[in-house]
């Protein structure tokens, strides 16, 4: 019987079912690696911004406003005489930071709400979900403006705003997941094993309900960045003159018409590539999850 103890992977645990999807995961890996590489490069560039550029984030070159790329300024300067290349680099800090922090906050709050609502059910579920409904139905920009007007416009408030916009989706997602998981035998097994409610929530439901969250979160980081850009465009973004891609684009967008592409195209491309990085990562994770589900 000795061989029985070690018989695991070689054992036929399942009939060889549909095998398609095998090649999907190869592209999924390409997506994930590409996305992660893009983000890594951007993160490194952001951290090393002082090494990569000779101008500061908000340093003004009085002699050069709106100068074309070349000379002392790699990508030219903006209307304030600030170096575009430096600002594009520095902006990554704020953009990545806000997006990731906002999504992390949204995930935390949303997951907790969804966990409790989904497991407890009953009136608590009803109440929590209605609150979530209210927040989700509330228009993003009005919420953002309200937060900004109430708390002033700062980085933390932007994080709160974007988190508030996104948290409901996680609450729903986790709640739905928990409601499914709750009916699975392993939860009953935990109950009959004498686990406490918090133990079940924390040790069993939480780790398992995070599976879809892990897939959505990177995509969400991309959307958060776009939301941030939109807020900047409406003048609700980071405080001036901090470098942020969305703010740079919206300031420079009008310049494109006059042929001064360099004020908005570089931050636009940076934003595009960064969001794309998140999207690729998310798409890859999603694909992998889908392939697993099939």
């Amino acid at each position: 019987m000795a061989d029985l103890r070690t018989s695991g992977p070689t054992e036929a645990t399942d009939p060889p079912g549909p095998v398609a999807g095998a090649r999907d995961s190869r592209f999924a890996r390409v997506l994930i690696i590409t996305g992660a590489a893009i983000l890594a490069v951007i993160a490194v560039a952001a951290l090393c911004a002082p090494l990569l550029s000779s101008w500061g984030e908000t340093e003004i070159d009085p002699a050069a406003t709106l100068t074309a790329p070349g000379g002392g300024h790699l990508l030219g300067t903006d209307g304030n005489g600030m170096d575009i290349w430096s600002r594009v680099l520095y902006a990554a800090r704020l953009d990545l930071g806000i997006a990731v922090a906002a999504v992390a906050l949204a995930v935390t709050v949303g997951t907790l709400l969804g966990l409790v609502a989904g497991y407890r059910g009953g009136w608590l579920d009803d109440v929590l979900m209605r609150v979530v409904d209210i927040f989700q139905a509330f228009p993003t920009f009005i919420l953002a403006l309200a937060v900004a007007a109430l708390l002033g416009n700062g980085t933390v408030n932007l994080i709160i705003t974007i988190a508030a916009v996104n948290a409901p989706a996680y609450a729903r997602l986790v709640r739905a997941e928990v409601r499914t998981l709750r009916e699975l035998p392993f939860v009953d097994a935990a109950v009959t094993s004498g686990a406490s409610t918090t133990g079940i929530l924390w040790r069993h439901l939480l780790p398992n309900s995070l599976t879809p969250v892990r897939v959505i979160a990177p995509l969400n980081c991309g959307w958060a960045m776009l939301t941030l850009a939109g807020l900047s465009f409406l003048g609700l973004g980071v405080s001036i003159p901090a470098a942020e891609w969305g703010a740079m684009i919206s300031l420079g967008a009008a310049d494109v018409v006059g042929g001064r592409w360099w004020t908005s195209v570089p931050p636009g491309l940076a934003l595009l590539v960064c969001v794309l990085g998140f999207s690729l990562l998310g798409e890859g994770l999603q694909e992998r999850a889908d392939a697993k589900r099939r």
Partner: protein
Amino acid sequence: MARSHRAGGASSPALSRRGVLQLGGSVALLLATGACAANSESKPRDGASGGPTAKALRIAVSSYLSSWDQDFVGFDLTALMLYKNVFPYLIDYGVTAAGDSQILDTQNVTPTFAESFEPDATQRVWTLKLRRGVKFASGNELTAADVKWSKDRAFAAQANVAGIYRTIGLTGPDQVKVVDDHTVEFHQAFPSALTRQIQAISLYVFDSTEAKKHATASDPWAKEWFAKNPPTGGYYNVAKATQGQEIELSANPGYPGPDPAKTPTIRISVVPAASNQRLQLQAGDIDIALGISQRDIQDLKKAPGIKVISAASNRQVTIQMSVTTAPFNDVNVRKALAHAVPYEQIINNVYGGDARAAKSPVPLDMPGYDAAGYPFTHDLDQAKAAMAAAGRSTVDSELVFESDNEEQQKIAVQVQSEAAKVGINLKLTPLDPATLGERRSKKNVPLQITSGQLWVNDVEYMLATSFVKGANLNYSNYSNPEIEKIYEQSHTTVDQAARGRLWKRVQEILAADVPWVVVCQPNFNLPVRDDVAGWVQPMDGLARLRYLTASA
């Protein structure tokens, strides 16, 4: 309350990218009690040619007007401009030539829809004689009853006009008396030199016959009707208004007076994005763009088919420091900031050099301007010395400006950067119009950028609005006993030389107290298609469309 106001972005073509946000800042321009005609040095460009034609003129503005009801609501740039052209204003500024340009002559108020507006010997009773044959769109003739009803309504509204009338001693409806069908008397409580100017912006008339049809017990002034239906009887009638989108004006055939509308049809379309306005102007889809950014204007000067109407202006851009709020309650900190502002850099970077440096809180083209005692130049060493004198190595403050006013935002950035070098750390705080209005009324903004133009080109007027205690535009909360005294004195001082001496003293005091940092005086610019002619530079920033033509 003999005070008037500074025009906000009124004459600034540098309307921001986002028209929606823009308006609030410009609201300050409204209630001028008069206007100055300071632009003696307007620079003519590309001599306009072409006579009146039948071609529809297309104008782009940044936002739709908030309301058609001038009495109760409606307080934005687009609205005010339209009011000037669709209400029958019984008297208005005349036109005078300044160089090659035509400008509104604020010193010369002439009857338009009225035949005359003259005082009696006491200067307290003013008689308004109406022109006969002025017709509203309804066909009703403009009569004294309309004037009376309109003024009653204005008093009832307790808003714009009611407020302004107090400055010339008109406080209640019974001071407006109908003499006959075409004569109305205004009985002022006291004589005023500003009556003509005040009445020029207040004597607009509703079609009361039509209005009364829509008045109800709960709405005796037909507010609902006028909120939705444009007034009629001015130089133009509103032929069609698509809410939020477009307004079509057609010349009022019922106007029998001088200077009738030259262009029969004008289309005003709302294009919030400045870059879109520029594209459309370049493509010839619009003739006049009222909301183009400063930088685009520099470009457009070189663009084919487009000319930029340009003129020097008395519009000031200043930073008001609250003398009662820390840290700027310390005069040395104020001096430090005044030395830290990079004046030339701002003129170059923000205005492309198209602005004048000013060496006094009194505008350059205002009689009495004297730069002699003004010590403030961009000098970081002196700024640091001033900080040392204040005994502070660093101070922190917020710098408030109008959110989405690109011009102010840029100035703020430049100021922040330089001020930081002397230890003044500024947090840039853009505020939306409602919040800005509220905070200004509370006078607790330590540092704010303001821009605007006085409508009466006189230092006495300026003191009244900006430097005496409690004045509306005195956001600095500034007060100085000597200034108060000079202000009192100036009421009775008529001799120009004596006034000049007073003003010199005023400027010395202001230079010592530094409630303001005067950043610069930007010039006025308006890009139009080449074939647009007849532009009359409006000193109140509100275009008189009747003079305009565009040859086909």
